[in-house]
């Protein structure tokens, strides 16, 4: 009982800075998510259309390599290149998000029945119309599941970005470790989970609206 009262007192005291950390966290995560979606989906579509299988596997290998580098190491590598703060965090997290989004979009595009593509061609769709009106909508379930998984990952990875001075809920956790303050560690972790759950819920709603099958 006493614990709960203490925790409420902690919130009452710190709520303003907790919200700041949270906002930072959301800002970093969303920026990374949006940049990676905008960059990766067209890349994956282009990869399904390219004739050279070598180039395609080269791109996949690069994305794979980024994924295998430990998160902390990748963030640290960014420091000599971009310094500390927001930018290196965005770049590092973006490189991380590349693979799951790329893979899902690529598989989604590859899963489309070639008969449907041929029908669209034969009916006189231009290549662009075909991609936008036929192929992407059909691949949407795959793409959306890629976006959901990646977004949840990004939110959890963003916690580590505090290590290179990007801010966010990671700061709360790190400070908690420094002061041996369980409340701070718990609050940072708990809020990161809540943000991830809310985002996943929002994306699920969007998905259901878009995919009516």
């Amino acid at each position, binding site marked *: 009982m006493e614990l709960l009262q203490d925790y409420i007192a902690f919130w009452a005291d710190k709520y303003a800075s907790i919200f700041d950390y949270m906002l930072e966290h959301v800002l970093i995560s969303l920026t990374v998510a949006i940049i990676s979606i905008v960059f990766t989906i067209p890349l994956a579509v282009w990869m399904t259309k390219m004739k050279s299988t070598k180039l395609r596997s080269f791109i996949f290998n690069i994305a794979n390599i980024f994924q295998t580098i430990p998160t902390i190491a990748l963030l640290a590598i960014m420091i000599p290149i971009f310094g500390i703060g927001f930018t290196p965090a965005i770049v590092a997290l973006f490189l991380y998000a590349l693979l799951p989004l790329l893979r899902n979009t690529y598989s989604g595009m590859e899963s489309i029945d070639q*008969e449907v593509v041929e*029908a669209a061609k034969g*009916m*006189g769709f231009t290549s662009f119309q075909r991609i936008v009106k036929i192929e992407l909508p059909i691949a949407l379930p795959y793409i959306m599941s890629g976006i959901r998984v990646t977004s949840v990952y990004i939110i959890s990875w963003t916690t580590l970005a505090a290590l290179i001075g990007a801010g966010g809920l990671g700061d709360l956790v790190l400070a908690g470790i420094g002061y041996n303050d369980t409340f701070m560690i718990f609050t940072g972790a708990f809020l990161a989970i809540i943000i991830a759950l809310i985002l996943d819920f929002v994306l699920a709603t969007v998905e259901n609206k878009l995919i*009516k099958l």
Partner: protein
Amino acid sequence: MIELKNVNKIYNDGFQALTKVNVEFQEGKINVLIGPSGCGKTTTMKLLNRLVDYTDGEVYFNGKKIKEMNPIELRRQMGFVIQNIGLFPHMTIFNNVATVPKLLKWDKDRIKKRVIELLEMVNLDPNTYMNRYPSELSGGQQQRIGVIRALAAEPSTILMDEPFSALDPISREQLQDELLRLQTEINKTIIFVTHDMDEALKIADNIVLMKDGKVVQQGSPDSLLSNPANDFVKEFIGEKRLNSNNQLNDLSLANYINKDILLVQSDIRIEKATSSLIERKVSSAVVINEDETYNGIVSLYDAIENNSSEINSIIKKASLIIYENDKVSTVLEKIEGIHDIVPVLSKEDIVVGLLSVDKLFATLHHLTEYKRGEI
């Protein structure tokens, strides 16, 4: 009108898919491209909307070289139905059918009117089906949608790539019948690819038979059946079909004429006719003029009803008259739906006898039974 002149298609790996193909697809007719797999029939069809490009030669569409036309616009002028239906799974039936009109930017009211009209054409209730998704329809219904989707923008030409081959036999028959019925209303130039000879013989006005990238024979189904160009054509059509066609033509109408009939003169009194009919135990007689030419028929029923008057008042014309030199196949076409007796006349209109319909059908039945059993 579509014409292929000396068309060759050689793939990059050197494989020659088509060799000197010369074909003329007849306007407003069902043109069937047929042959064993790998014969180039689908390639030939896909040349027409430039899904495949040809190496040399020329293809003319309404007098224009298709190589000089914009492929996107060319495709929008041709309906396209593919083997595995290829409906867009994420679109409602309405949007699927409306695809090409939307690409052509028709206004909304016109599109809606057209979609409803098309759905009614294939007996699918627009209110029930318009907002459904393809996965909610049976295979046969889906391919009906595939066919009307190709018709939507009123193209003059429709390309169909083995459209019914993935369906079960019953749906396939239904769709073939529907296509034939539709074609009497729409009169499109249809290019239909199939490997099924029965299907080709059933629907084609013009058959183009191909083998190894070359056209082996083209012509009407009858001309292929009666004059197969070589052994390959014979083999591909199948002995059984050739035989049954020949057997039908070999049947002589003479075997089906009943000559033992009652003839009455046109000037006798009815009582006399009635008593002859009763005496011979038949229900009708053929009335002839003085010079023995055909006049009409009288039935026992009418004769008894009007017993006291002149025979002239009860003579009826037969709904179908045939001549003894007619072919059995011609007679079979005409006889459908006729329940009267059918008089058979000579060239000079002299009555030879009556057609023995039962006997003819018994023979026909025997022939088709044999065909079914063997195939």
